[in-house]
């Protein structure tokens, strides 16, 4: 079962992840980010990229994490299929596994410009955590 989903925002699109921990919800939100661009199943986790970021609170940290991935996708011209997140206070250490963009195979629908603070939310939900925001495409 997917533990991520998209939600609607007029011109753009929202990404939402659920998890037992904040870190897991962040990983799932990142999968939703990839799925904005392409079919997740089409991306192979061949290369590993490390990401580090920091922000004063969980919500800004979610935006930072997604923006760090947008940056890595843009500068490395890669797409990612798998993520791992470790959180220590206000710092995040993340890993992303993916491969170079292949237009013929990935049919990337759209380029994500950045994660916004619109509907930005990191909160307890049910027994776990939810992490969501809208991304500008």
């Amino acid at each position: 079962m997917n533990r991520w989903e998209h939600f609607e925002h007029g011109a753009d699109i929202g990404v939402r992840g659920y998890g037992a921990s904040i870190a897991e919800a962040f990983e799932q939100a990142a999968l939703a980010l990839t799925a904005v661009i392409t079919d997740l199943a089409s991306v192979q986790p061949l290369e590993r990229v490390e990401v580090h970021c920091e922000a004063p609170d969980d919500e800004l940290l979610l935006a930072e994490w997604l923006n760090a991935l947008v940056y890595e996708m843009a500068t490395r011209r890669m797409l990612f299929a798998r993520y791992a997140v470790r959180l220590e206070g206000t710092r995040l250490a993340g890993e992303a596994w993916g491969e170079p963009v292949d237009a013929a195979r990935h049919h990337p629908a759209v380029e994500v410009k950045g994660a916004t603070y619109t509907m930005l939310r990191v909160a307890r939900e049910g027994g776990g955590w939810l992490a969501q925001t809208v991304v500008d495409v």
Partner: protein
Amino acid sequence: MELNLFEKHGEFEWVIPRQGAMRVPAVIYASEALVRDMDRKVYEQAVNVAALPGIVKASYAMPDAHWGYGFPIGGVAAFDPEEGGVVSAGGVGFDISCGVRCLHTGLSREDIMKIQAPLAHELSRAIPAGLGSTGAIRLDEDEMEAMLAGGAAWAVQRGWGESADLERIEERGQMKHAKPGDVSLQAKKRQRDEMGTLGSGNHYLEIQEVTSVFDAKIAAAYGLAQGDIVLMIHCGSRGLGHQIGTEYLKRMAIAAAQHGIHLPDRELACAPINSEVGQEYLGAMRAAINCALANRQILTHLVRDVFRRMLPQARLPLLYDVSHNTCKVEEHRVDGGTRKLYVHRKGATRAFGPGHPDVPAPLRDAGQPVLIGGSMGTASYVLAGTKASEALAFSSACHGAGRAMSRHQALRNWQGRQVVSDLAARGIVIKSPSMRGVAEEAPQAYKDVSAVVDAADAAGLARKVARVEPLVCIKG
């Protein structure tokens, strides 16, 4: 939205009077039908903007306003630094200086239709579009700095265009007071391979035919006549602008709290104009404007190369180039005096009226051209700035159609290949690297641009001059 939220001050003017934290009223310019269709979020966002420090006169929303980030898309707001006014990264948007450029071709419909498919093919090969595409130009550190300071003027110096082009670009192709040093290394790195690329989403390049002329006198001044073929480019500052938007959004979210500015929505992140973060953002944002102007200039050069090979008789001079995501320092008349204001236009086009000194001399009597891009496969419009627009909304008009439905809903409703063949049946050739992208941008996924333009005209924001319809569309 329910109409009873507003005081109706005219057929096309809907006012939200000052209340609560609002420092000024909010005004939406639109027809009754457009207001009814607008998201309630436009109301909330226009009200939130009206509460920001130093806002002057009113928080405005254009006829194409829709739910944006902090500011509505289609939002206009001016701030006075002498009154604690702010600058907002969200008030400009991620795609800084996204805009529309229009070129004349001197060609006829027959010239294009004779070679429509091969011409579309050659353009799609020459114009890098879509995610992961790179341009042929690589900028080293010195050239990056020169580009960020020089804009389209830099591009022309490097041989990508003619000096006459610069006269037909806002700021004469070069935004002053840009500070490349305030642009992060990350933003520069993101741009390194992206000069002369179109991007994706709603960005496109179209060959269009003038199908209606509404104001013959202004059209003549603009060099437009029924049946003329023009070329429009819609794109922005690429990765560099997106990265600057991202970085300053965070810095301003933190800075606002430090300056005691209460934000009902974090996306309204802003900093006083007279603060370190505010000044650095302005320097970086202006550099991003130059990046967008240089990018559209390089794309113009690539287009001219294709036409030189395929239609050697064509000359492609600029009609005009406008940006619709900016913050610019302008002088405006307010309450009988002239004030220097920081005018944010997010998804709104500057629309200087006749006689304004910043309008190029040959066009000055007619007013500034206002280029309104439609969505893929639909009409676009050329309007002209009016004298009245100064008092209505600091000389601003709409910028496009705005989405009528989400990307998901569009994907559920249409398939890319079907959209391409439907448009082909109407004589329009679409080229795109992504069929899913085409489906998400299906013409019916957008509002009717004609209704938006009619409302802008009726409200007096800008005057309708000509309608153009596409023959070829290169889609990002």
